[in-house]
């Protein structure tokens, strides 16, 4: 600045140049993670509950869930699925719904960052949380004696995580973008609880009444847990659950993109 500055004219003068899109997205991602870490209930649902489910159900060898082998072998895929549901749906939906009700997204949309950097940063935030969750859960499972089965496929696990994330983030944003924040808070937590039961996460689907089990196996939580179980070496054919999961990803992702309102 060549002109003399006083505090009166802070904000006047040659306009500042915008930062790169990547720099803005990264700044927003860090902010997203910082705010997420500050929400105690969010830490509970994204980290404590999935880890607790893994530890408790592995230790006490309860009915077990999707997959075969030792209790920890059976519990790991479901607890990762639960972690994905918590990060991509519950946490994202609640944070976005409150952002929306405070006008945070609208304000950011009018800044140089714009809507695209906001969406990208929310995606990045979910990915970072999921990576930490997966490392935490695999680490805990390994400590409990888990090893990858013979047919394990990193590619399949990643495919499951990506499709599952798109499906659940789509559902989360569909809720966040259309309902009141308080309603999203209640509904996201209810769906999280339902996922525990209908996802074959704490007990196998075949313990449910026949018709319920059939419907549940076509829903995203069970499809995700199933793909992850096969990917972690539980054996079986992943084609059907992958197709189901991909279908939900397209439908829920598409609906969210069409129905989401910024304000």
């Amino acid at each position, binding site marked *: 600045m060549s002109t003399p500055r006083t505090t*009166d004219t*802070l*904000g006047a003068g040659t*306009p*500042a140049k915008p*930062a790169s899109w990547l720099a803005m997205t990264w700044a927003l991602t860090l902010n997203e993670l910082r705010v997420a870490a500050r929400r105690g209930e969010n830490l509970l649902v994204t980290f404590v509950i999935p880890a607790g489910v893994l530890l408790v159900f592995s230790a006490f060898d309860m009915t077990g869930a999707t997959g075969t082998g030792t209790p920890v072998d059976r519990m790991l895929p479901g607890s990762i699925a639960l972690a994905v549901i918590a990060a991509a749906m519950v946490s994202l939906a609640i944070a976005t719904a409150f952002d929306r009700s405070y006008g945070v997204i609208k304000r950011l949309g*009018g800044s140089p960052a714009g809507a695209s950097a906001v969406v990208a940063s929310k995606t990045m935030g979910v990915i970072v949380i999921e990576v930490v969750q997966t490392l935490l859960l695999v680490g805990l499972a390994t400590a409990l004696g888990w090893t990858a089965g013979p047919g394990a496929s990193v590619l399949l696990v990643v495919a499951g995580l990506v499709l599952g994330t798109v499906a659940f983030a789509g559902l989360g944003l569909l809720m966040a973008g259309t309902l009141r924040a308080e309603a999203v808070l209640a509904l996201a937590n209810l769906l999280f609880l339902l996922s525990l039961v209908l996802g074959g996460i704490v007990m196998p689907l075949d313990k449910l009444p026949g018709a319920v089990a059939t419907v549940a196996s076509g829903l995203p939580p069970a499809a995700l847990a199933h793909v992850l179980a096969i990917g972690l070496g539980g054996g079986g054919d992943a084609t059907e659950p992958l197709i189901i999961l991909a279908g939900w990803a397209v439908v829920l992702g598409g609906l969210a993109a069409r129905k989401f309102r910024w*304000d």
Partner: protein
Amino acid sequence: MSAAAAASAATVGAAPIAAISVASIHKAYGKRAILTGVSFEVQRGELFALLGPNGAGKTTTVEIIEGYRKADAGTVSVLGLDPVRDGTKLRPSIGLMLQQGGIDNRTTPREVLRLYARFYRDPEAPEALLTAVDLGAAANTRYRRLSGGEKQRLSLALALLGRPKLLILDEPTAGMDPAAKHATRERIAALRAAGTTILLTTHELGDVELLADRVAVLDRGRVVASGTPAELTGAGAPRVRFRLSEALADADAAALARAVGGAGARVSAAGAGAAYEMTGLAAAPDPRLVAALAAWCAERGLLLTELRLGARSLEERYLELVGADVAAEAEGAEAEGAA
């Protein structure tokens, strides 16, 4: 040259592109028409105030200019660009202060300013802005715990981070205490003097009269009047309003009217205390009339404590324009008081 003069110069000859040009925009939400043909231009370097009652369409107009909404019909150009199509290019040059703050309840002023500062390569320093808007003491307080005025000041600081060419302020002083209002008014005036173009919506008509180069009054989705504050208030019968240190006897009031205002003038009480207005003047008040009034008072040992020339205040003119019922009531009360 004042910006108002620049504005009138810009309409003839090789005019620079207006900072904002809104041409017969229409907007309806469902069957409810919000804007029905709004047009106005804001010239570069000008402070333009958009006035109107709640529900007149001010915020909708501003949001169309900001690119948040698309007009159903009509054209909008901001710094020569289309706010919806060219949003990415436009947003770095615009500083926004929305009516709803748009800040997460759990974050602090310092965090929010630092976040938004990272959207620019060479922004104003967040710490300097915190001090400038007097938020130093509240820098680490969660947004939820800030007062209404503190939230508004944070919002203003955010708008200034990128040294915007165009500043759009939607009711900037709402919820501020008198001291903060004063400081904000000074800051807006300083920015305007430094060359920033400012579009302002407000209900503070006194501020507008002092600050604005030009004004448009919006009512029920239409511009019902526009021009400089002087143009808006200047129309109509000339009158002089004043307040004295002591009340006048009726005979003195009549003598004053004859001595200062000439034949046909009359002085009548206007409101509580020793407030008067002189009407029936043959011409608009000039320096000679002011000198005569002051001299007449001095001879009698009266102190002239307030003096206002012209037809009426912007507030009176505004009420005439937008609130026929309210204005009629006010006039009725005035006529009774005068009788």
